[in-house]
């Protein structure tokens, strides 16, 4: 599954980044890197973009971009 399919409150580790090279490079620069844990915080009013936490950073990205991030399954529910 990809980051775009994560539900609010769920988190998972990043398995791989694959997609538009410009998007992938930006994601790397923001700290989305293989092995990192990423948490979905929620969605904007119209369902897109989504808000995530990676390390200590809150990021906003669109679903199309989040789809470039493949996750290790299964996602684990997190509190807080």
């Amino acid at each position, binding site marked *: 599954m990809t980051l775009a399919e994560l539900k609010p409150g769920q988190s998972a580790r990043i398995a791989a*980044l694959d997609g*538009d*090279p*410009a*998007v*992938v*490079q*930006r*994601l*790397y*620069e*923001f*700290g989305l*890197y293989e092995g990192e844990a990423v948490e979905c*915080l*929620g*969605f*904007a*009013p*119209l*369902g*897109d*973009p989504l*808000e995530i936490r*990676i*390390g*200590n*950073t*809150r*990021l*906003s*990205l*669109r679903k199309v*971009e989040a789809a470039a991030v493949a996750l290790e399954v299964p996602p684990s529910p997190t509190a*807080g």
Partner: protein
Amino acid sequence: MSTKPIVVALVGNPNTGKSTLFNALSGLRQHVGNYPGVTVELKKGTFQFAGRTVELIDLPGTYSLAPRSLDEAVAVDLLLGRLENEAAPDVVLSIVDASNLDRQLYLTTQVMELGIPVVLAVNMLDVAAKQGLAIDLGILAERTGLSVVPIQANRGIGLDDLRKALVAAPGSKAPSPPAMPADVDSAAAELVVGIVPAIPGFLSRRLLFDIGGSTESWFLATHGDRHRPAIDAARERLKAAGLAVPGVEAKARYGFIRPITAAAVRKPERRPTTWTDRFDRALTHKLWGTLIFLILMFGVFASIFWLAEPPKGWIEAGIETISSWIESQLSVGPLRSLLVDGLIAGVGGVLVFLPQILILFLFIAILEDCGYMARAAFLMDKLMSRCGLSGKSFIPLLSSVACAVPGIMATRVIENRWDRLATILVAPLMSCSARLPVYTLMIGLFLPAEQYGVFARAAVLFAMYMIGFVAAPVVALLLRKTLLRGGRSMLIMELPGMKVPSAKTVIIRVFDAGWAFVKRAGTIILASMVLIWASLYFPSSDADGANYEARIAEHLEKDEKGEARKLKAEWKRQSYLGRLGQWMEPVFRPLGWDWRLGMATLASFPAREVIVGTMTMLYEVEEGDDDEQTTGALTDAIRDDWNAGPRSREAVPIALSVMVFFALCCQCASTLAVIRRETKSWRWPIFTFFYMTGLAYLAALAVYQIGRLFVGD
């Protein structure tokens, strides 16, 4: 020891306290550096320490030195000494946020490749401590090989240690950056073999790593598209060897950073929930976030009108005092007319709007500095992307409500060049503060409160602002579907922690904006007013060679006000501007305008506020009615003139047609100049001018012709 100043470039991610540090180090000794050939203005500041002068250059906040946006490309060129008239800096000051070292050291590792000594300022250790993070700066310094200084920029802590480190740094050994795999280095070097002038190693690696990035486009444009196959082949070879770009770069950098932060940073088991987390949950919440957004936007607009009223009154009173003083000192003649009718009426009429502009910029600076703007972009992205824009276009468009010039400059953060261009081209459609005087004048003129009520007047004003809010996205959508097709847009954006805005940063922002406005009033508006005054004043004698001013004075002495007014109208009509206006009247007629409205509009093309002064001159206010305010008297004079005319019933459609024209037309030389500067081409300002003028003419035509049907004959 040389006395040459030490040049320090300040580099860091956005929201790390970079501007705060810059302001704290250089105080008010700042100026904006202009670089020939590039559009980005960089702030420079200086300070003295230990007998040395240090010149600090504030680079735009960036997440990496892999240039994709304009800002990033300029930052890289400056750091490599590739800008004209600007040597490479002696030292790079890299600022990082302590609570986010893992990610922020990514940029630092890129900076370490430049071959220049690097000083690492670790900011916000207090914030990190609150999150339960303990950072061993000794380990950080030892393992990175950099000179590390802890600071708290917002409270001015650690600045002297930082200054000491900066002064000591020049000439010290350049840091050793994380090593790239040998195959990567050789592949990068091969790409630029034989290229003259030689390309620095840093850039050749960027050429290899940044697929579709600025370095690639620049290189292919400069040295020929024939190099493209070699670049593609090198990337393919690396991919086959398990070193695919861009992942290989990230792996090398994080491979270097991770062990260091693992040793230097102690993290708590669980991340504590901070107050900004809770606050943020509300700000980006589907319902509450949207509600807060709407309330904030409403508050900003409401306060522009309410808070600005008293200071506006003081400025008006001041202008009034000056002009009556001049009238009492000078006798009737061209000089007095130029000073009072041309300069004071024209420039003063514009300065009256300074309080509104300052208040608007105050709000924008506060919202920006506290971190809210990113939330607004998050909330608006979906709507904006449906119009072919991105959430990041929201901030430039909102700033354009104050003034399109800073709004257009704020588009530099948009990575996709077509998104950015579309945002630039529609930003002037937003109702800027210079349109406000026009709306106020027209509403005051043709929709008197006694007759239409306060509510109808407010509704008309609101509708004028809505025109911009509706037209901008619609035009953007059309442009993205036709002229500006291409490029997939991207929104990957940090939502920085909310913080209390820094007073210093906000004040500097507001001051800069206010000064730019005053300068504009003193140059382009002043010059326009002098020209318009002259073309309305001359020729100043009638067919028999008698001087109009003298004849009017004679009538006034005999207290024949009606005669004097008739004569004044005749004088204006036969002036150069009057003759041109009557000749052009067929163009304005379908919009319902007479030659005076047409001329006032035409004269406002350099700067739309000019219409206020021009109208004052055209419908010259009775002298001697000094107990009334100028604008009030102007309103009365024009209204009398209109109500006396046969077309008085059409007053409202005509006023609306003028307002709609001004809402949509690009009557602003500064905006066109800034579009030229930001797009590096004459094509786009010319395009903007013609599409907006055409749109304005058609809309005004429709408003008048339809409005006429309602009022009947």
